């Protein structure tokens, strides 16, 4: 359990590091948030008004004081107030998060349901035309940026079928599941393509490794059917690296898919951060990036722990 403890010890340290980096980085962005918020009207403010606004948003203090105030606030769930939304940062983040979470889950679902069967199929037909076909498709999928997939999908739909995907609106799943899925399916496919390609490649190579293991040979020599050898004996072990890969990829997706959200005009976490950076909404950027980094680290930790649980060598060996 040495490894687990070491991972857990590093966790808060890295999180503090992330919070310091974000805090300083966003303050290095040229321009101040009050001007960014009010635009040209900022010129109409009297110095007194400007000062009182700065006090309201807590940006009148020196950096260390601001940081300390923000940092201690985190423990009370208080991430400050967003200048652009005029609402608590946590509330703004939690409003956007369901969409991002759903998108990440849907694309993972797509990736796994295409990638694993394709990888297994290719592995069982190693070096034959079918294997080659799957490998080429996976390689192309992995090399195609999400925005290319997205634009091509939109083009095919609009030029080929005369329909434009719904954009800019988001209906929560619990309000109208069908409506929600019809809005989310294209972005999910867009993100799922490259993801599915990686899953295919990893499951294929893991499956090939496992298929040459002794216990698979034993199972075969005992007279187990090919189907049971592949699905019952080999696949569960081949899935270990697939779990790792999906976990890491999922962690990335929880950070919001800035580009895909931009293409489909989805109000997700990624686009929110992009806008917040451009608006110099200090509190929102700090809170959101910390939230994203925390998610990412938790997912990675869980993946590592799952990996350690599945593979005793890592658990005992340490780093």
């Amino acid at each position, binding site marked *: 359990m040495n490894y687990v403890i070491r991972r857990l010890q590093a966790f808060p340290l890295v999180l503090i590091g992330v919070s310091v980096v974000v805090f300083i*980085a966003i303050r290095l962005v040229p321009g101040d948030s009050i001007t960014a918020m009010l635009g040209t009207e900022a010129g109409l403010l009297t110095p007194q008004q400007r000062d009182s606004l700065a006090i309201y948003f807590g940006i009148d203090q020196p950096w260390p004081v601001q940081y300390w105030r923000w940092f201690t606030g985190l423990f009370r769930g208080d991430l400050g107030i967003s200048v652009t939304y005029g609402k608590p940062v946590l509330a703004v983040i939690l409003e956007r998060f369901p969409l991002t979470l759903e998108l990440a889950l849907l694309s993972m679902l797509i990736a796994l349901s295409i990638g694993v069967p394709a990888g297994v199929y290719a592995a069982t037909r190693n070096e034959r035309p079918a294997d080659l076909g799957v490998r080429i498709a996976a390689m192309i999928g992995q090399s195609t940026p999400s*925005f290319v997939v997205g634009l091509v999908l939109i083009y095919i739909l609009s030029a080929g079928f005369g329909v434009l995907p719904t954009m800019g609106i988001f209906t929560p799943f619990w309000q109208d599941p069908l409506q929600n899925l019809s809005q989310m399916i294209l972005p999910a496919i867009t993100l799922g393509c490259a993801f599915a390609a990686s899953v295919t490649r990893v499951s294929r190579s893991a499956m090939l490794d496992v298929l040459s293991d002794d216990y698979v040979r034993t199972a075969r020599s005992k007279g187990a059917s090919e189907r049971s050898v592949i699905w019952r004996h080999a696949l569960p072990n081949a899935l270990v690296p697939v779990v790792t890969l999906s976990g890491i990829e999922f962690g*990335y997706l929880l950070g919001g898919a800035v580009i895909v959200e931009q293409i489909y005009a989805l109000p997700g976490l990624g686009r929110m951060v992009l806008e917040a950076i451009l608006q110099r909404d200090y509190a929102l950027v700090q809170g959101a990036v910390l939230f994203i980094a925390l998610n990412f680290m938790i997912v990675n930790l869980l993946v590592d722990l799952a990996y350690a649980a599945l593979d005793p060598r890592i658990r005992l060996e340490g780093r």
Partner: protein
Amino acid sequence: MRVVKAIFSHPSGRIGGAIVLVYLLVALLGAVGLTPHDPLMQYRIDRLHAPTSSYWMGTDLFGRDVMSRLMKGVGQSFTVAFFSVALATLAGTVLGLTAAWYGKRWDTVMMRMMDVLLAFPAILLALLIVTIVGPGTWTSVAAISIVYTPIFTRVVRGPALSLKARDFVDAARTFGSSRSYILTRHLLLNLVAPLTVQVTLALAWALLTEAGLSFLGLGTQPPASSLGLMLSDSRNLMEQAPWLLAFPAVAIMLSILGFNLLGDALRDILDPKTRRA
């Protein structure tokens, strides 16, 4: 020479190598300005012209030749990718080698710092850096290299740690070889193989990130051309002028594909352990 031969006898190495070579040529031509037309010249009467013998890839909304802009854009994307990966490799190698060599506190501090950087999603970190410094070619280079430095640091540190414990390093120490000699001759030289693979794959990611940043309007700034920017511009016109979407899309995809294939081949050739990965 041996490696080059091996690459071209490896099926994906052959294809990847050929693609990369063609791109290098196009990038070079684009960078020095040997394009069919001036990429900034606006042929107003030929606006949104479909591909013809005089404009092989058609023209855009302003009547600029798409092929010339594409060549210039490939030059631009490759410049950013090469410089950012070179910087990340240099920084990552120095940090990883010293972390492995000096160990203890320096190692802990370095690796925790890299953990902090790795906790940011790549594109977000790049966005933050670009917003601080302001968009532009060299900002993209800096942003992408900072994003990929932790990866190189890790790639170098792990093997360097195990090399450091090997007998031949101890032997070199006993013979009185200097620290810098051991670091460069014994450690670095043995790390060339994993680094080469990583560099090739990182070039693919760097091209992807550069295109993404430009697509969001935070990379290369107009009127200069870059593949991501061209794609972003095609968004509102793709029904009338699908060539504006098709050519840059294929160009981005093929460039990344080339480096991915080459990286896979190099991994097979240089690292027999992961032959099938």
